[in-house]
C-alpha cells in the first residue's frame, strides 16, 4: 500500500479551548469535542463547548487545516427531540466536518431535515459487523467508530468488504463491556452510560464466587478489580495499525488536560510521520515509548487489537486506578417505585394483552405454553452448562407450541461478529424450512441478514436501545414489526414513547437481566490454565461476582465465551401492570429460570393481565402473589430502573 500524509488521521480529544490549541499545535489531523448538549461527557459542567464557542472552535480548527467532529452521541428520550432538532439545525449552520452519533433517531432527523453534515457512527452504536455497516451506509453514515472488541484483522476485512472509513480507539480509557450495551449504571443509579453519566461499576472490587459451593474462588486471585480494563496503547504496534487500513486513530480523553493531550498527540504524530516517510526502515522511538510509560495512569494493553487479551488486559490490583466514581450499592428492591399511572394518549384496548416468555429449553416451552404464553422466544445465547438451541430443538418447540396455539419466535445473539454472522446466514436460511413465527434480532446487522435471507416477520430486542418514537419509526422503515423498549427507560419515558409510537412496543416485566455483556471471560481469565486447551470447570460450573454490598451477580458464560453479568436482583413489575394499561405486549425474560418457575411466572402474569382487562378500574393487586414469587425466585426481586422517575 502506498502511504501519504493523508492515509491516516490522528484524532485528538478536546474538552476545553486550551486543549483545542494544544492538540492542533501538537499535530492532530482532526479533533472531536462535545457541545454543552447531548454528548457522552455530561458530568463536568466546565468542560465542553457552548454554542458560540463551538462556532469559534470550528473556525479555529479549519484555519489550521484541522477537521473537527462534534459528538452528539447520547441516547435521547421523546422529551428531548425538539431540542435535538434545534441543536442539529445549529450544527448544520456551523458546519463541523462530521457529527458522531449514537441514537437512531438522529438518522431519522437527518433525513427529515436534509442535513448535509457528514455523520459518523459513535462507538456507542456497537457496530461490529459488515451488515450493520451497510445499513448505516444506507442512512448516509460515512464512518464508523468500530467496537473496541474488534481485532485489526477483523477491521481490515470490514473495511475491504464495505469501503467504510474505520475509526478505532488506539489510546486511552477502555470499557470492559460492549459499548452501548452496558446497562449497569443506568439501571442501578438512573444515570446511564449511554447518556454520558456512567458511574463505572466495572471499577468496583469484586470477588469471584463458585455458585455451586457458595465459596470464594481465592486460589491464585490476582486482585479484586476483576473488570478493570487497562488503558489501550497501540504505540508499539503502529505499523500493524496503519497497514490494517484503519483511517482514523482515535485518542480517548475529552476530560484530559492540554499537557496530557499534547504529549500523546506529539508522540503518535512523530511515529506516524516517521512510518509514512519510510515504512520499511521504521522503528519505534524508545524515548517516546518511555515517556508514555512514565506518564501513564493505568498500565497499558493492546486490548483486542490482536485478539482477545484475556487476563493481560485487566489491572486486577486497582493500584493504578486514577479515581473511582461510585461504590457498589444494594440494588433497588420492590419498595419506592416511581410508577404513577399517567393518562395515555391511546385508548385502552379491549383485547387482553399478549404475554411472551423467553426460555432456555423444551421443558420450559411446555411450561410457558401450558400456563398461557402466547409467544415463546427460543434460540440465541445459552448459559453454560445449558446447551445452545439446535435446529432440531427449535423445530420441536414449534411443534410443542402449536398444540397450545402459541407462536415461536427465534432470537439471535446480542453480539454478532464475523463468526456469528456466518452462522446466522446458515441459521436464517434454515428457518425458511423450520418456519417459526418470527425472528428477533439484537442489532441492525443481524436485522439486515435476516431480511435478506428470510421472509419471516422480524422484531427488535431491547439491545436496540429504543428510547424515543423516532428511533422506533426508523426501525419500522427498515422492516421491524415490533420492538422491545430499552431496559434503562423509566415509566414516564416508556409511556411517552408508547403514546407516540405506531410501532408495537414490547415491555420486559420480569426476569434476570444482564447488566454487562463482555467478550472477556471472567472465570476463564482467572481459572483458565495456559497450558491446557480446555478447562472443563468453565463449562460445568456457575460463577458469580460478589460486590462489596454483599450481592452476587451471576456470570452467564455463553457458547461464544462471552460473559453476561447479571444484576443482583431480578426485575419484577407484577404489582404495577395496571399502570401500563394500553401496552399490548409483555415479556418475561426467563432463559435463566427453571421450567417450574417459568410455569408459575407465566400463570401469574397471565392471570393478572386478564384480571386487569376484565375488571378495569376495579382491579386490585393481591400482594400475596408477590410473596409467593419472592419465595421461589432464585434471586431477590427489584424494580430496576423503575426506582427512578426519569433516566438521566
Amino acid at each position, binding site marked *: 500500500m502506498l502511504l501519504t500524509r493523508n492515509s491516516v488521521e490522528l484524532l485528538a480529544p478536546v474538552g476545553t479551548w486550551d486543549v483545542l490549541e494544544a492538540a492542533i499545535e501538537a499535530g492532530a489531523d482532526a479533533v472531536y469535542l462535545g457541545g454543552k448538549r447531548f454528548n457522552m461527557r455530561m458530568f463536568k*459542567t466546565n468542560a465542553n463547548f457552548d454554542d458560540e464557542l463551538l462556532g469559534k472552535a470550528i473556525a479555529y480548527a479549519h484555519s489550521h487545516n484541522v477537521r473537527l467532529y462534534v459528538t452528539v452521541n447520547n441516547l435521547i428520550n421523546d422529551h428531548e427531540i425538539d431540542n435535538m432538532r434545534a441543536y442539529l439545525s445549529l450544527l448544520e449552520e456551523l458546519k463541523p466536518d462530521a457529527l458522531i452519533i449514537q441514537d437512531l433517531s438522529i438518522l431519522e432527523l437527518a433525513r427529515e431535515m436534509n442535513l448535509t453534515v457528514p455523520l459518523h457512527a459513535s462507538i456507542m452504536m456497537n457496530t461490529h459487523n459488515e451488515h450493520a455497516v451497510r445499513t448505516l451506509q444506507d442512512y448516509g453514515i460515512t464512518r464508523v467508530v468500530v467496537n473496541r472488541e474488534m481485532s485489526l484483522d477483523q477491521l481490515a476485512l470490514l473495511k475491504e468488504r464495505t469501503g467504510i472509513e474505520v475509526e478505532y480507539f488506539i489510546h486511552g480509557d477502555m470499557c470492559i463491556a460492549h459499548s452501548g450495551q452496558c446497562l449497569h449504571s443506568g439501571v442501578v443509579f438512573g444515570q446511564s452510560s449511554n447518556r454520558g453519566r456512567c458511574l463505572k461499576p466495572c471499577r468496583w472490587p469484586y470477588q469471584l464466587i463458585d455458585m455451586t459451593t457458595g465459596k470464594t474462588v481465592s486460589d491464585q486471585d490476582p486482585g479484586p478489580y476483576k473488570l478493570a480494563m487497562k488503558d489501550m496503547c497501540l504505540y508499539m504496534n503502529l505499523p500493524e495499525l496503519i497497514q490494517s487500513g484503519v483511517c482514523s486513530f482515535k485518542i480517548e480523553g475529552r476530560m484530559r488536560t492540554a499537557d496530557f493531550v499534547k504529549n500523546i498527540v506529539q508522540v503518535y504524530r512523530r511515529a506516524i510521520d516517521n512510518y509514512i516517510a519510510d515504512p520499511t526502515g521504521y522503528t519505534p522511538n524508545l524515548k517516546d515509548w518511555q515517556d508514555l510509560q512514565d506518564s501513564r495512569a493505568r498500565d497499558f494493553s493492546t486490548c483486542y487489537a490482536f485478539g482477545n487479551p484475556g487476563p493481560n488486559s485487566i489491572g486486577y490490583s486497582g493500584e493504578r486506578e486514577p479515581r473511582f466514581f461510585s461504590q457498589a*450499592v444494594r440494588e433497588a428492591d420492590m419498595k419506592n417505585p416511581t410508577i404513577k399511572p399517567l393518562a395515555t394518549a391511546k385508548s385502552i384496548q379491549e383485547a387482553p394483552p399478549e404475554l411472551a416468555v423467553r426460555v432456555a429449553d423444551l421443558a420450559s416451552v411446555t411450561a410457558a405454553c401450558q400456563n398461557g404464553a402466547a409467544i415463546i422466544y427460543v434460540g440465541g445465547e445459552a448459559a453454560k452448562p445449558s446447551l445452545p438451541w439446535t435446529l432440531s430443538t427449535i423445530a420441536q418447540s414449534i411443534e410443542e407450541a402449536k398444540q397450545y396455539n402459541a407462536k415461536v419466535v427465534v432470537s439471535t445473539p446480542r453480539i454478532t461478529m464475523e463468526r456469528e454472522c456466518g452462522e446466522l446466514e446458515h441459521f436464517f436460511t434454515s428457518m425458511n424450512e423450520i418456519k417459526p413465527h418470527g425472528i428477533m434480532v439484537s442489532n441492525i446487522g443481524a436485522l439486515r441478514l435476516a431480511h435478506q435471507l428470510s421472509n419471516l416477520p422480524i422484531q427488535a430486542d431491547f439491545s436496540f436501545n429504543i428510547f424515543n418514537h423516532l428511533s422506533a419509526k426508523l426501525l419500522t422503515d427498515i422492516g421491524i414489526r415490533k420492538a422491545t423498549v430499552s431496559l434503562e427507560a423509566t415509566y414516564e419515558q416508556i409511556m411517552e414513547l408508547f403514546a407516540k409510537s405506531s410501532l408495537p412496543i414490547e415491555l420486559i416485566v420480569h426476569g434476570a437481566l444482564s447488566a454487562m455483556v463482555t467478550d472477556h471471560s471472567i472465570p476463564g481469565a482467572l481459572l483458565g490454565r495456559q497450558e491446557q486447551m480446555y478447562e472443563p470447570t468453565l463449562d460445568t460450573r456457575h460463577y458469580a461476582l460478589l460486590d462489596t454490598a454483599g450481592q452476587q451477580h451471576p456470570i452467564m458464560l455463553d457458547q461464544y465465551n462471552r460473559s453476561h453479568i447479571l444484576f443482583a436482583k431480578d426485575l419484577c413489575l407484577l404489582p404495577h401492570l395496571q399502570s401500563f394499561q394500553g401496552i399490548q405486549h409483555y415479556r418475561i425474560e426467563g432463559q435463566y429460570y427453571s421450567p417450574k418457575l417459568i410455569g408459575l411466572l407465566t400463570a401469574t402474569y397471565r392471570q393478572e393481565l386478564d384480571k386487569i382487562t376484565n375488571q378495569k378500574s376495579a382491579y386490585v393487586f393481591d400482594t400475596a402473589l408477590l410473596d409467593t414469587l419472592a419465595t421461589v425466585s432464585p434471586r431477590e426481586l427489584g424494580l430496576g430502573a423503575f426506582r427512578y422517575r426519569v433516566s438521566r
Partner: protein
Amino acid sequence: MYTIGILQLTQYLDDAVHGFKHGLAQRGITAQYHYRNADGNAMQLPKLAAELAELKVDLIFACSTPSTQAALQLTEDIPVVFTPVFDPVGSGLVHSLSLPGGKATGVSGMIKAEAKLDFIHRLLPTVQNLGILYHTGDNNSLAEVDNFRKFLQPGITLIEIPFNQAEDLSNLPDLLPIELDALFLPIGRVVEENFPTIAYYTDTIQLPIIASHPPNVSAGALGALVANHYDLGEDCASKAEEILKGAHPREIPVDIVKKPEILLNNYTAQNLGLEFSAELLAEATEVFE
C-alpha cells in the same frame, strides 16, 4: 519578567490558576508561566515538580496539598505559594498560619466549622441530629471533624459516622443511625468521589446532605458552603507579589477563605419537600435546578 511554575493536581482546580494569573496581572506583574498538571495522578507530581525546578522558576504556585508537598520536597530553594490546601499546619506544610517558617505560604481553602454549622442551621433550621460521615484515612476529613467537635452549637448533636475504606460505603444503611436529620460530608476525596453511592442511599430515606465539594451539589446534595477557587487564586497573587519583591515566605502569614459561597440544589429541595428561604436564595452564588 518573572518565571513562574504552576503545579496542578487536577484541572478541576484550574479556576485557582486563572484567579492567580489575573491577580498578578492586576498587580502589574508579568511572568512567563510553566504549567504542569498531573491529571489526578498524584504519583506524577514529584517528576513534574522536578521539571519546574529545571526551568529555574522563581516561584511555584501549587494547587492542592499533594502538589505543595511535591514542590516542598525539591532540594532547590524555590518559594511555594499554595491553595486551596485545607489544613496547611496538620499536613506539615507550615509551622503555623501566622508564621509559616519554611519556604511555603498561601491561602487555605478551609472554611471554619463555625461558618459551616451556621450555614447548616440556616439551611435546615430544625436539624438536631447531624451526622458527619468521614473517611478515617483522610487527614483533611479528620481535621474538619475535629473542628466541628469544637464549635458545636447548643441544640445540635453531632453524630460521627467514621468509615475505614471506600467499599464500606456499599453498606451505608448499616452505618447510618435512624435518628439523623441531615448528613454533613466534610472535605475528603473518598466521600467526594463516591458521592453517588452516598446519595443513592440517602435519597430513599429522604435524608438531606450538606456537602463540601461543589460538584456534589449539582449531583444532588442539598447545599454547600464552599471556597471560590478563583478568589483563592487571586488572594495567592498578593502572596506571590510579596515574595517576588523580596519577602521570604517563612514570614508571610497564611490566609484562609474570606468570602465563602453558598451553593444550593433546588431539585433536591423539591424532592425532599423543602423550600429555601428567600434570604438564602438571594445570597446563593448558584442554585441548581
